């Protein structure tokens, strides 16, 4: 069970760090205008990738889908990939 607590702590810390990184990317007064540093599409893809990773981590570790096999193992990941694809098409095309 100690292992479970440790895993929980690591996942939580990762989620918070990724959230802080997302927020920093949106702060003009901290990093300047992001469009002067990276391409707008790359900026969008970084933000979307972080969101997808975070949702996958919640599904796998908080909802314990990593203990499941088959279709249900991927249900949250499938959802976020589908949603992310719609968003990506709208933002990039």
């Amino acid at each position, binding site marked *: *069970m100690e*292992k*479970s*607590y440790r895993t*929980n702590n690591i996942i*939580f810390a990762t*989620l*918070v760090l990724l*959230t*802080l990184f*997302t*927020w920093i*990317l*949106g*702060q003009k007064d901290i990093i300047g205008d*992001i*469009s002067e540093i990276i391409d*707008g599409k790359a*900026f*969008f893809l970084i*933000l*979307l990738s*972080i*969101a997808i990773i*975070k*949702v996958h981590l*919640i*599904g796998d*570790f*908080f*909802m*314990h*889908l990593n*203990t*499941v*096999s*088959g279709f*249900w*193992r991927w*249900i*949250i990941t499938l*959802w*976020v990939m*589908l*949603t*992310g694809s*719609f*968003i990506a*098409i*709208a*933002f990039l*095309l």
Partner: protein
Amino acid sequence: MYIQESIKTKYPPGDLALWIFICAELLVFAIFFAAYAFTRASNIELFNQYQATLNTDLALLNTIALLTSSYFVVSAIISIKENKQKQSTRFLFLSIIGGCAFLIMKMTEYSHHMSEGINLTTNLFYMFYLSLTFFHFMHVILGIMILLVLWLNTRKGLYTADNHDGLVSGGAYWHMVDLVWLILFPLIYIMK
């Protein structure tokens, strides 16, 4: 215990009916997110202009509040697996505090918008922003009510190491509320 945990099951932990309900909820949110993204594609300047008026600091705190609350729900489940009811009760109470913190911050944001005369008819961006976040807000309220029931049941000792499906199912719903916000936060507040 580790051997037991390493065995993969066919169905997700908790009540399968609730998981089907979670899938239906996620599908509705996916349609909302797609609608926002495609509407934005035809009104990029308007969306970027009004997105800049949103408070990203409060949105960050909202995200941290939900993540922390979810963390405590997972901790409560781990505790109940060790038959530590009191510890589990404390963790669930902390998760409710996290959810309430989210509601208070969101209401602060809404009251600020209302004081500026912003409503659903102000423009297309605010129509999406207010309806999407309020739809999620209602789910947070329902999630907190579920957490309250779980907290009361745990206090009464209804969950044990061998019987805690209700706790796991309720926890899964709360995590769903959390992961929807993890998409909503960058999509509405940050992505340009």
